[in-house]
């Protein structure tokens, strides 16, 4: 303000201009302000409903299952005579085996299908568009239908495997395969075309480009898809009941043994059906066991994803 050239008139004019600018910057119509606030409130509400549901499940399971929580849950088998010492060991092992089988089946199949659709399939051909449409639709098919499919084609019918754990894995793998394919496609599509061009321009073949540039860059996205798939597969009950998961198994299952296997949600279902209070407690504790398993698997997958996270 110590500028000697500044006259009274200049100062007034400047002040006036400043006031006008401030006015035009600060005046927002009241209606817009209200709409903005309302929209924000709705967003918070939507989030709160989702979180409240999750919190309700966790709190309910924790409170009701609290008396049964302890190492016995993981080490003991189920028992109808002695519910206070009953645990989930066979079902836990059954679930882990099932999921292991699902991962082994779904990762190569899902990635393979996604590579074909993204890198080789020519979208101008009608059959490729039909395949794409079907994969998307399959992701929304109810799981009981996969159970019937598994019973008809895997347990009986062409494959005739019988009621073994691998049949359960195969059925669950079919169930979550579309999810994995869709996620892997997204991940592959997210790799910039310039990376492919750079690789091809060096004289690399299409396969070398996919194998050494596209797939490594797509790993994080593919892992995300597998996490989603596992999360869904781990909680599925209906198809497993159809393909032979027994509700009450007291010994550890094996992959190919035909004397029965079980899984966590199936055993929880069994316990929850029983009228005695002890079993209600066990069912709630089973929910906690399942959440722990799910969280452990997901954390591992997230850790794996972060390790491969790349930027471009």
């Amino acid at each position, binding site marked *: 303000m110590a500028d000697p050239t500044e006259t009274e008139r200049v100062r007034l004019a400047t002040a006036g201009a400043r006031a006008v600018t401030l006015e035009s910057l600060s005046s927002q119509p009241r209606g817009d302000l209200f709409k903005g606030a309302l929209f924000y409130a709705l967003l918070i509400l939507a989030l709160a409903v989702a979180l409240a549901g999750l919190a309700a499940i966790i709190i309910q399971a924790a409170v009701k299952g609290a008396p049964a929580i302890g190492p016995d849950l993981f080490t003991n088998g189920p028992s109808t005579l002695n519910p206070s010492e009953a645990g989930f060991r066979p079902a836990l092992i059954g679930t882990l085996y099932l999921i292991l089988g699902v991962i082994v089946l779904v990762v190569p199949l899902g990635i393979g299908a996604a590579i074909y659709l993204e890198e080789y399939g*020519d979208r*101008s051909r009608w059959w490729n568009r039909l395949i794409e449409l079907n994969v998307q639709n399959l992701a929304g098919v109810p799981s009981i239908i996969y159970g019937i499919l598994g019973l008809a084609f895997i347990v009986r019918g062409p494959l005739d495997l019988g009621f073994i754990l691998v049949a359960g894995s195969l059925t669950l793998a079919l169930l979550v395969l579309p999810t994995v394919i869709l996620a892997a496609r997204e991940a592959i599509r997210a790799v*910039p075309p*310039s*990376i*492919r*061009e*750079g*690789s*091809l*321009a*060096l*004289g*690399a*073949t299409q396969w*070398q480009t996919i194998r*050494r*540039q596209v797939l*490594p*860059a797509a790993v994080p996205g593919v892992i995300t898809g597998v996490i989603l798939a596992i999360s869904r597969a781990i909680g599925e009950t209906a198809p497993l009941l159809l393909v032979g998961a027994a509700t009450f198994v007291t010994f550890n299952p094996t992959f190919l043994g035909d004397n029965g296997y079980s899984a966590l949600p199936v055993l929880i279902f069994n316990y929850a059906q029983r009228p005695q209070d002890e079993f209600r407690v066990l069912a709630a504790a089973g929910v906690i066991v399942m959440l722990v398993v799910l969280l452990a698997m997901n954390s591992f997958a997230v850790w794996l994803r972060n390790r491969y996270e*790349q*930027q*471009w």
Partner: protein
Amino acid sequence: MEDSIRQAGDQMTEEDIPGTEEGPRRGLSQGIEVGAAADPIGGIDPWSGEKVFELEDVTVSYGGVPAVKGVSMGIQRNEITALIGPSGCGKSTLLRCLNRMNDLIPSASVDGSILYHGQDLYGPRVDPVQVRKMIGMVFQKPNPFPKSIYDNIAFGPRVLGLDDVEERVETALRGAALWDEVKDRLDDNAYGMSGGQQQRLCIARTMAVDPEVILMDEPCSALDPISTGKIEDLMLELKEQFSIVIVTHNMQQAARVSDKTAFLIVRLDATENNRWGELV
């Protein structure tokens, strides 16, 4: 492996294709202006050198709509040939035909003939992968792989099964005047480099597989003047070793670096409202 590539290259030049004799010459004389950066030999016939490419009446269409029409020209060995012209005249399209990168666009089709040492690049027995081994390309936007600096360069030699990968990496980085800047951080991610360094990395990456020709698609358009200057200096050095074809928007750049310049213009079709590029 390297030997087999060389042999393949030799075979390509030996096999004679009917029509090579008189075909392209006509196109050349009417097609090309000699660029402002005068012929280095001076006074001698500028077309005396060995031709790497001979284009004859090349038309490129996307889904039936022509982008470049009737281009005939020659590109000589160990020279820098610039393609200039306004936006949308198909310079990049034409360039991408030279190493069959247009194959990646399903709707693109190429008519006319493109001869590489007398061999039709679009012949039935030509494998685009082999073509790209000999004719490398540097793109408009630097596109390093999401890997370490070392792995970026080593990728080419590795997938082509060339030996002495480590030596090639160093030679290529030295060749691209990048060695002193990155020799202490070869294991760092290439995305940590500046834009100019990334582009020189891409040039080094191309050099590491010993191509004969390097195509450059506006290599400096995303770079600042200093980086641009470095790359131009680099190009002038590289032409001893390689033949270079560069697409550029920048007339001054074409004048500074090129031995010959092809100028494409846009023609409008009044009835169909199509536009395509034509060589003048």
